[in-house]
């Protein structure tokens, strides 16, 4: 047995010197590790599920548009004269998971008022298949795929212009041939997102009706909106522009980032608190053996050897605890994958309103691989810091004499 293997054996044996104390240290560390992995996956899956729910309602994961459709600096601004066709789309497989939209700012006149709104022409059947927009129709119906000149208005918008189901409203806008576009549309439904701004600023009609209104040829449109929430990353296209939801609604993206970062911060605090407790226990454990360290030194063990043996002892304990913690974290994540948590448990039974939309998601846990090595590394780091002080104290206190 070489010297290093003997050192490991010696350190391993020392873990059984006070087995109950070692067990408590391993349990506290592994519970901490497991909880942190669970918590980070919860935060990540929670924000991911909320975002998925949110994006599925209307916004989509990314928009494929003419390269100059969205303003390069401010994606809130767009140029309706920049249109596209499917012929320009080099990856035809993207057609399956996306839906076409034509968008234009218009004025809509009800009985007494005229107000501005963003009118979006939708591919009705595809939209029903890919998005959950149709679920937001709480009064009336969603658009009929075979119909034309139907319009859905936001609930608040309809109240403000005093439009009722079955009414005809006048829509006026800028056609893309330069003329003034105007037409009558029949109100078939009201959008109800549970409150929020979008109920005041959105209206929807059939894609063909929007194209006709805007004098757009049937093959031209503004956006292909993808709802592919599972695929990470954006497709790379040469001719067309691809804009992610993060760029389109950065305020929401930053909120999600903030939640993720604050969760990490909270986890670091948890590890620090556990480490402090561990440091205290290690100090007691080391001090109890002070006389023994002295005897070891007398019979020929160098200070370096004793220090290494203590470090390996803590390292073995930490590794066992981390392995257990990773396993516990993984099993917990798996459990909540099959038994998703209703987010209302954390909001007092109230739904979340985000970006003007109501969201009531079930949080299904997804195991993010990076957490399973980042958390152990973080714990190893703090564990190393934890043992420095007890080690220094015990070495300084050693009197090296009979």
């Amino acid at each position, binding site marked *: 047995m070489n010297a290093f293997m003997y050192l490991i054996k010696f350190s391993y044996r020392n873990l059984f010197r006070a087995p109950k104390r070692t067990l408590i240290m391993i349990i506290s560390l592994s519970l901490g590790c497991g909880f942190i992995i669970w918590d980070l996956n919860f935060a990540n899956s929670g924000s991911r599920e909320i975002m998925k729910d949110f994006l599925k309602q209307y916004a989509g994961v990314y928009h494929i548009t003419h390269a100059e459709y969205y303003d390069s600096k401010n994606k809130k601004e767009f140029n309706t004269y920049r249109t596209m066709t499917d012929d320009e789309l080099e990856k035809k497989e993207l057609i399956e998971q996306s839906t076409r939209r034509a968008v234009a700012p218009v004025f809509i006149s009800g009985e007494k008022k005229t107000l501005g709104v963003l009118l979006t022409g939708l591919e009705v059947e595809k939209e029903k298949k890919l998005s959950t927009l149709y679920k937001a129709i709480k009064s009336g119906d969603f658009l009929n795929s075979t119909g034309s000149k139907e319009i859905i208005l936001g609930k608040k918008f309809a109240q403000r212009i005093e439009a009722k189901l079955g009414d005809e409203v006048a829509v006026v806008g800028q056609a893309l041939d330069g003329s003034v576009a105007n037409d009558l549309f029949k109100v078939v439904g009201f959008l109800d997102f549970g409150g929020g701004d979008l109920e005041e600023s959105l209206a929807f009609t059939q894609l063909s009706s929007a194209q006709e209104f805007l004098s757009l040829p049937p093959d031209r449109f503004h956006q292909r909106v993808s709802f592919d929430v599972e695929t990470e990353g954006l497709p790379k296209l040469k001719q067309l522009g691809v804009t992610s939801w993060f760029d389109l609604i950065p305020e929401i993206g930053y909120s999600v980032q903030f939640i993720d970062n604050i969760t990490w911060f909270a986890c670091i605090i948890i590890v620090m608190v556990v480490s402090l407790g561990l440091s205290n226990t290690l100090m007691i454990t080391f001090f109890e053996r002070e006389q023994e360290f002295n005897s070891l030194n007398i019979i020929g*063990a*160098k200070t370096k050897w004793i220090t290494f043996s203590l470090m390996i002892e803590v390292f073995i304990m930490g590794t066992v605890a981390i392995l257990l913690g990773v396993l516990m974290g993984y099993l917990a994540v798996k459990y909540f994958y099959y038994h998703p948590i209703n987010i209302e448990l954390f909001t007092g039974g109230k739904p979340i309103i985000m970006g003007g939309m109501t969201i009531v998601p079930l949080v299904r846990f997804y195991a993010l691989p990076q957490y399973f090595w980042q958390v152990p590394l973080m714990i190893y780091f703090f564990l190393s810091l934890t043992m420095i002080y007890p080690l220094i104290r015990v070495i300084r206190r050693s009197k090296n004499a*009979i």
Partner: protein
Amino acid sequence: MQFELSHVEKIYTSSEENKVFGARDVSINIHEGDFLALVGPSGSGKTTILNLIAGLILPSSGSLKHGGKDITSLTLEERTKHRLDYMGFVFQDYQLLPILTAWENIEFPLQLKGFSKTEIKERVDWALNQVGLNKMGNRFPKQLSGGQQQRVSIARAIAGRPQLILADEPTANLDSKTAQEIIELFLKLNKDFNLTFIFSTHDQRLIDQVRTVLYVKDGQISEARTHHV
């Protein structure tokens, strides 16, 4: 090889005015096969002299040599290695590692020395045999009596075949019968292998058996007696 302390002084200073002599003008020559006891009341300086011989503490003045080599010029780590290479230790309270069996406790310094597996086995078995515990190697210290633990401690000290064994009050924690057995074991090892022993003790039975007795008082060797056992 000769251990030589020449006009050694060890002064413990807590303040400029408050100096305590742990050892004062101590000169001792230790030869191979010596069986020597440092005798004196508590606080007389016996343990300080043992610590000086072991190189655990350095003298304030005077020289400390082993085979002509100046121990005081060695670094702390070099002195630790020096102890490992040339000395064995027997403690009053045995100081066995509770997590290791008797066999493994004896193995410990041999592992530090870097001996091969075969050599370690041979030496540990030999040492256990010398102290009469060859069937108790797999027992942990708590499964052994005080006398048996001290025997393991002696086996650990002799397994590396050191030139010098330093024993601090080795019989102080033992009953009369066991103490007598341990003394006889020391004598046997000294006779059979010409091992050099230095004890600090006030056990009269041990004092009666040693060839050289150095009486220590206030850090000084006040009297030296040599007799044939």
